[in-house]
């Protein structure tokens, strides 16, 4: 029965007419002001994986960075013990406690500070209610879910009312499973506008998952904490959303460059400069696209798989707040929602990793007194994960001509 139930939505999706219709004005334009070097994103004979040299360089930087983070993460227990009990064992009192909390924060372990717990509770409340603000904002701007999806005048009124009803359910915490189903149903409806729109809106599903797993009598209780399963799903969906958005930036590179042409300030980011270091300035915009995209891919991947979730979540918080306040201004006020979702994860004390089996293997090898096996296991796992995560799609994209997008 359960299998049949799961097959049902798949069948519905397959039957839905998912053709992209001629309604391009639905989306915000980010017209290029200057042409790009189209050949940059194609195949290059004689190069490793056929990648353009600068793209390969940025990819390698991202790959090494991911490897380093994975390697350190798999030894986080040992590193924590080494720093707290060997390196800084002389510390006492507040300094020792501060270091302990900081180490726990950085290594995704529970932080037992009351203030941390209070911020976490507040972040959950914000996360559960902020989508209502975004919906109301979109409704008053004749848009669906996000201001960048303008509604057709002929149907705008109905969609706006639906959004208001949904927002009321969210604000009053009434029948949250129904609200979750409406969120997910609306997201599936976005197939109507093409798969890229659906990928763009994946982060919206994050809160839908939490609503779906909330009790029917949600209006009677104060939800200030997410269960371990909910945190896991929020992490997986949100992380996957940003991973997909990152790859979309390279896949649909004209659009990404169009953003930079219209908002040049986004190109000045230290993290992206780091990824693009040593590249040819003649391909400045192209390098920026790949660096920006891979930075997002890494952030999304780390959050999704639970590798230094708090560190990368904090970086994402910084980027979102910067985009909202500095780069795009009021137009990006709906960023309150991903900020709230990321904050709910960063301040959660129920973080887990999807790669816990690697940690278990290395800890088992440690107990058995096999140091080489420990390092080899972690190194092999880290390299494999990093290479697959960075180069698989980078390589695949070189076979797809996207110059007409």
């Amino acid at each position, binding site marked *: 029965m359960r299998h049949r139930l799961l097959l049902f939505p798949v069948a519905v999706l397959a039957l839905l007419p998912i053709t992209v219709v001629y309604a*391009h004005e639905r989306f*915000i*334009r980010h017209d290029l002001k200057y042409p790009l070097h189209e050949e940059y994103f194609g195949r290059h004979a004689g190069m490793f994986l056929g990648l353009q040299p600068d793209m390969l360089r940025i990819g390698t930087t991202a790959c090494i960075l991911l490897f380093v983070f994975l390697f350190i993460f798999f030894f986080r227990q040992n590193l924590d013990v080494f720093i707290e009990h060997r390196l800084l064992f002389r510390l006492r009192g507040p300094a020792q406690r501060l270091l302990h909390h900081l180490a726990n924060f950085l290594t995704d372990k529970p932080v037992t500070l009351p203030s941390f717990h209070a911020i976490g509770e507040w972040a959950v409340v914000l996360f559960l209610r902020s989508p209502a603000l975004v919906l109301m904002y979109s409704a008053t701007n004749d848009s669906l879910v996000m201001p960048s999806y303008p509604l*057709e005048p002929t*149907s705008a009124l109905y*969609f706006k009312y639906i959004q208001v009803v949904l927002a009321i359910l969210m604000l009053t915490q009434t029948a949250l499973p129904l609200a979750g189903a409406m969120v997910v149903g609306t997201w599936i409806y976005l197939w109507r506008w093409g798969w890229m729109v659906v990928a763009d809106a994946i982060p919206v599903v994050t809160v839908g998952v939490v609503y779906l797993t909330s009790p029917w009598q949600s209006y009677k209780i104060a939800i200030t904490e997410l269960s371990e399963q909910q945190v896991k799903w929020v992490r997986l969906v949100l992380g996957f959303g940003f991973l997909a958005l990152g790859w979309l930036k390279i896949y649909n590179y004209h659009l990404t460059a169009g953003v930079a042409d219209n908002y040049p300030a986004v190109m000045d980011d230290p993290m992206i400069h780091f990824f693009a270091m040593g590249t040819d300035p003649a391909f400045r915009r192209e390098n920026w696209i790949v660096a920006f995209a891979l930075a997002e891919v890494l952030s999304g991947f780390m959050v999704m798989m639970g590798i230094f979730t708090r560190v990368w979540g904090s970086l994402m918080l910084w980027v979102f707040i910067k985009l909202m306040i500095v780069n795009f201004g009021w*137009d990006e006020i709906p960023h309150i929602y991903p900020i709230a979702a990321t904050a709910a994860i960063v301040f959660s004390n129920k973080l887990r990793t999807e790669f816990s089996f690697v940690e278990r293997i290395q800890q088992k090898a440690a107990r058995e007194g096999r140091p080489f096996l420990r390092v080899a296991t972690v190194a092999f796992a880290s390299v494999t994960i990093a290479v697959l995560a960075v180069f698989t799609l980078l390589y695949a994209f070189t076979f797809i001509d996207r110059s007409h997008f």
Partner: protein
Amino acid sequence: MKFASVKQIIVMTAITCVALFALDYYKNPQLWHSRSVGMARPGVRLTLWINHMCCLGCLADVRQALAGVPGIDVDNATDPKQLLTQAEAKMQGASLPDYPNAVELPISDLKKLDLVAVDRALRDKGVVAGRMELSGVEHFRLEALLEHLCCGMCDSSIQERIAFLKANGSAGQLKWLDSVMVDNEKKTVAAHARFLEPGKTVDVVEFLSGLNYLGYEPSSLRIIAEEKMQQTNHEGE
């Protein structure tokens, strides 16, 4: 605590999804059935709504004013019905006609038509079109040539304040406007219109007045029909 079952979740999600599709299909048939883009065809029209057009004398002035404007077919214009002659209007002291009266002009060549030239020609004759309604072009942009675009602040002021005007259009002004693009090098401001349904119109005076309100006087305003517009999606994360 009672939680939603998998069955309930699937049913509720499917209902939401199907309902949204049905609503979209029912209310936006133009998006589901329209594939071909209507370019400059006999159906492309410019309707001038002139509040002061009480008699055939006024109409004659309007026709005379527009005679030299390229891109419109004045000879085949559809005039307002039941206009009094000048003599009748003078003698009877009759009650005023229903305001406003409109002249519907077929657009013979969209590329040659300059809406600022239309406006000026009318003003030179002493009449003003309160509304200039364009119909019959599904996808288009209005491209205004602004000689005064001296700096980045000029660019940003147009971007920001047009959006502000749109947001404050309590009577639905500029609802047709999707986005505005400023090209400082070409000195142009492009107003991209949303899909224009058959039978619906866009009042280009709203855009002209908006530019005037912001302190700009366009030297020309052209309609650029768009065969295929760039399809893009939300960005910014």
